């Protein structure tokens, strides 16, 4: 079980959550594509109080040579939380958590990007978390997917990062900070909304099979909503006139 703070009340008496959301309600999401002029593709995602910026560079020749793959491109992801992204200052630079998130994000993106089109190449994805509430890895994946599309990288589908969890024995969609810290479980997934495939899945805490199914149902519903916002962001950028 996560946390261990059983006395923290996370659901109100009226059944709503502390921030007033219903149990299957997502925090507000907004996405903007093409925010960084120097990058080949970029996006900024605001999800609740989370703010993530992703930049994509490449495809470019992979350096050092030992990381090159003769039959495909490698995706080099660097996930980083800015020192000012949380209330307690984060020490700048890589740490164990950011390395893990960079790795799982790269693996999730490799499953959607048509990497076989670019042998010996590298596609660099930089994810910077400017403000963190909870679920930053999901927000980072969503931002990276929009940035990859913006960069013109061929992909099977856009990938959407979304999470559900359990608080006070109730499955809820899109955990906020208190729910993430004091809840019983967290289930972040990367979903391909058009095919319904899952590109990455992690689980922290315990969920029964029924709870797991309900959490996934919430995740798929939220992924569809976020996907529409992603497509809308790309349309706004390009149907307005550029290109």
């Amino acid at each position, binding site marked *: 079980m996560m946390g261990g703070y059983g006395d923290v009340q996370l659901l109100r008496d009226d059944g709503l959550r502390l921030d007033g959301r219903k149990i299957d309600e997502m925090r507000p999401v907004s996405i903007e594509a093409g925010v960084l002029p120097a990058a080949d593709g970029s996006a900024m995602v605001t999800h609740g109080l989370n703010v993530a910026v992703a930049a994509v560079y490449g*495809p470019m020749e992979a350096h050092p040579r030992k990381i090159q793959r003769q039959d495909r491109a490698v995706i080099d992801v660097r996930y980083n939380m800015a020192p000012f992204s949380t209330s307690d200052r984060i020490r700048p630079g890589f740490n164990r958590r950011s390395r893990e998130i960079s790795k799982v994000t790269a693996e999730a993106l490799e499953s959607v990007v048509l990497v076989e089109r670019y042998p010996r190449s590298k596609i660099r994805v930089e994810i910077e978390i400017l403000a963190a509430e909870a679920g930053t890895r999901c927000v980072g994946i969503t931002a990276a997917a929009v940035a990859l599309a913006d960069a013109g990288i061929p992909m099977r589908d*856009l990938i959407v990062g979304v999470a559900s969890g359990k608080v006070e024995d109730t499955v809820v969609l899109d955990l906020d900070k208190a729910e993430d810290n004091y809840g019983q479980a967290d289930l972040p997934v990367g979903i391909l*909304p058009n095919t319904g495939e899952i590109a990455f899945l992690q689980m922290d805490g315990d969920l029964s099979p029924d709870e797991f199914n309900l959490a996934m149902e919430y995740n798929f519903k939220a992924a569809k909503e976020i996907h529409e916002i992603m497509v809308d962001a790309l349309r706004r950028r390009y149907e307005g006139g550029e290109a």
Partner: protein
Amino acid sequence: MSQGQSGAEQRLVTPGMAVGPSTGKRAGSGVVAANDTFIATQLGWLRERNSTVSVDPINAAYMPRSGDLVVATVAEVRNNLWFMNINGSFQGLLPMSLAPWKVEFGAARQHMDVGDVVLARVQEVDECHNVVLTMKGVGLRRLNQGAVETLPVQHIDRIRGENNENLQRLREACDSRIMVGDNGRVWIDGSLAGIRWARKAVHALASTGHRTDINELLTTLENELKGDA
């Protein structure tokens, strides 16, 4: 490519989007067929021509192909070869045996140094993206004067037009020499006013050619030039 649909209402598609049934049609670039449906794999404008469905990408990297004409810049010089920046993911290699001059071993720098611009052709690309260039061929040479503009590689066909019609109009309007490389680089040489106008014109064609009638756009640009003169 794009010029065929200039002015027409085009549909923006995103990766993973179903763009229509695949029965009786062929999948072009930026599209894959799955379960009798075409799925877009790139962000871009949907295009259908001669029963081939494809996506004109909004952004794309230059992928060299054998026979491409490229405007390249010298990035590195070795004793017997030059590494050329061809505006792609990988540098191209120009060995001294494929240079238009007789080059002694160790004297490559005397013929071309870092930063020099050349018109070359892609001789060979292998499956690992090793690119070999050649300067042996009609018109392939070092470019000693003029200006080089870099445009999005996917918009180069708009500059050329059907049978190079647009390019010819540009050349005649500004009385300048214009060479369009397949790698998204355009070399322009002429009078200062001509170069200035041509630079403006190629950027206008590249950036607005998908939603404007290209003939009208060219006429407007030509009138602007006459007005200036």
